[in-house]
């Protein structure tokens, strides 16, 4: 009864447009009142989740990403990518994929990726005569790569939503091969679409230019090494590595690239605190919601329900992927990861799925939701940059959806793709 009230109130509030955090908190309050639980316990749960150690890294990585976005790192990465792959068919499209992969490695955010790379490359592609939908679709598809490579915020979010017991280093390592596979799949798709539409490559600028651009991009790209090897070697915790990322991004963008001005710094802080507020507020409210779900034994019920319909690991994973893809069409990624993890992860564990493997599946499944209407923030940002309707963009997106689904299937069906690097790392 109380569980029904909880979900009905949540769905009702969500459908009338209530912010997810308020929908989670108010529905939890209503169900708690039905059960006669003290309201103050909900505030305690919210506060505990709002300021949790495992989540401290997220605001700092978001801040570092904002600094890089405004400080000239992305521009140098795009120049390098242009020199490396610009001559392949669909030239600037291929550049977008490589630049997104490299920039994803320093920002860890699909939104930052599409803003930085898309902001620079979508207008350039349109100017060179590429159709708008192609320019937008290549860029937004490539932005998903950032979700899978360190320092992915969503990986940290998944680890926290799972109760903090899953190593962030393992998750970071597990995402690397799927990210590379996704990059290759999108490059192949870009090539095929470009060939059909007659988009040629750019002229090769010559090896001296490639070398010059590489040298110019190296200070920015070093950040990924600092973050990754700092955590991996145990020199820094994830939080400290995020701190180093902020300080390093400041130093590079101010002293080396000389691009970050005081105004940009203020905008970076303003963007970071608003993102932090949005993300942590949902996490806090989801903490209270999750606490009540656990009190009502909802995860155990989910396991039982799944056992009634699915008989093996692959089937249960495919069912969960389907559910996440559907939920992802109308929910943003962060709230979906926070809400779905405590329900789906116990089911995956009951079927013997490695939680790190499940983490990669979840991030990729929810990530595809960022490109699907009616709620797809990366799709919306890309369409806004390209100045086209979302519907127009989606029409040409299907080859990229297929590429992403093929990669998702490979990740689901072949666990070593995700688990071999973490195993090697240990």
């Amino acid at each position, binding site marked *: 009864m109380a569980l029904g009230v909880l979900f009905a109130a949540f769905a009702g*509030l*969500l*459908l*009338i*447009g*209530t*912010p*997810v*955090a*308020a*929908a989670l*908190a*108010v529905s939890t*309050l209503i169900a708690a009142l039905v059960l006669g639980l003290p*309201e*103050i316990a909900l*505030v*305690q749960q*919210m*506060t505990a989740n*709002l*300021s*949790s*150690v495992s*989540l*401290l890294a997220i*605001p*700092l990585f978001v*801040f570092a990403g904002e600094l890089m976005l405004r400080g000239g790192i992305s521009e140098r990465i795009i120049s390098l990518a242009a020199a490396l792959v610009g001559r392949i068919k669909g030239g600037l499209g291929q550049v977008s994929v490589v630049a997104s992969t490299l920039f994803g490695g320093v920002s860890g955010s699909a939104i930052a990726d599409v803003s930085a790379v898309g902001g620079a490359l979508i207008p350039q592609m349109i100017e060179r005569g590429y159709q708008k939908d192609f320019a937008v679709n290549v860029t937004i598809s490539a932005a998903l790569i950032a979700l899978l490579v360190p320092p992915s915020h969503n990986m940290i979010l998944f680890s926290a939503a799972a109760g903090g017991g899953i190593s962030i280093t393992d998750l970071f390592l597990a995402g690397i091969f799927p990210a590379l596979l996704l990059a290759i799949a999108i490059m192949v798709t870009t090539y095929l679409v470009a060939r059909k539409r007659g988009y040629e490559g750019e002229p090769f600028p010559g090896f001296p230019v490639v070398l010059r651009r590489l040298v110019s991009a190296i200070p920015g790209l070093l950040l990924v090494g600092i973050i990754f090897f700092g955590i991996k070697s145990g020199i*820094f915790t994830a*939080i*400290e590595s*995020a*701190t*180093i990322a*902020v*300080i390093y991004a400041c130093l590079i963008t101010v002293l080396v690239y000389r691009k970050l001005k005081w105004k940009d710094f*203020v905008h970076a*802080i*303003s963007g*970071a*605190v*608003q*993102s*932090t*507020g*949005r993300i*942590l*507020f*949902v996490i*806090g*409210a989801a903490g209270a919601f999750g606490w009540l779900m656990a009190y009502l034994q909802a995860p155990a019920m989910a396991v039982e329900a799944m056992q009634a319909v699915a008989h093996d690991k692959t089937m249960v994973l495919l069912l969960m992927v389907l559910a996440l893809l559907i939920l992802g069409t*109308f*929910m*943003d990624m*962060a*709230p979906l990861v926070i809400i779905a993890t405590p329900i789906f992860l116990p089911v995956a564990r009951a079927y013997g799925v490695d939680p790190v493997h499940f983490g990669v599946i979840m991030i990729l499944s929810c990530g595809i939701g960022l490109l699907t209407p*009616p*709620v797809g923030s990366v799709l919306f940002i890309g369409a806004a940059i390209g100045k086209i309707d979302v519907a127009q963009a989606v029409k040409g997106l299907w080859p990229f959806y297929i590429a992403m689904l093929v990669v998702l299937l490979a990740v689901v069906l072949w666990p070593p793709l995700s688990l071999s690097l973490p195993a090697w790392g240990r």
Partner: protein
Amino acid sequence: MTNETGKTGGTGRKGLLDWLETASLVIAGVSLVAVVAVQAWQVFARYVLNDSPSWTEPMALVLIAITAMFGAAVGARRETHFGFPLLADAAPPFIRGACRAVSRLAMAGLGAGLSWYGWVLTIDAWNVPMAGAPLPTGLRFLPVAIGGIVLAVFALERLVRGLMERAPEVAPSAAVVETA
């Protein structure tokens, strides 16, 4: 539905709540920079001074709660929180207005509830020392108490403005006074 600036009217003059929004952004931003400073000190002290301070983590948690609550309050005013407004937006004007009013009321209620119970927890835990830092445990709940009330004020402002914006459907003369 979303107002990116949240500024009052078209006069360019800043109202009291605009100042409150700016103050919230400054408080949240300074706290975020302070988290970086505190964590950087932890790394410096551990590797250079060979003395790992225990106060950095609890301090960082208090600071990040300040950033989160004041950032969330600004999000309530600018209506940039994660949501799914498409269904409500597609509804007829009267239903749409009602949905928005209920949503804003829920947000305001959440802010008020957080603020009230945040105060209760702050007072309850004020005399309990925080583990690892010479600070009262109640400090952990103070950002929730203060940020909650700011969030409630911003959500209520949105609620009242939303109700007044729909005034022309009921009383055109009132709208003239409002926009003059």
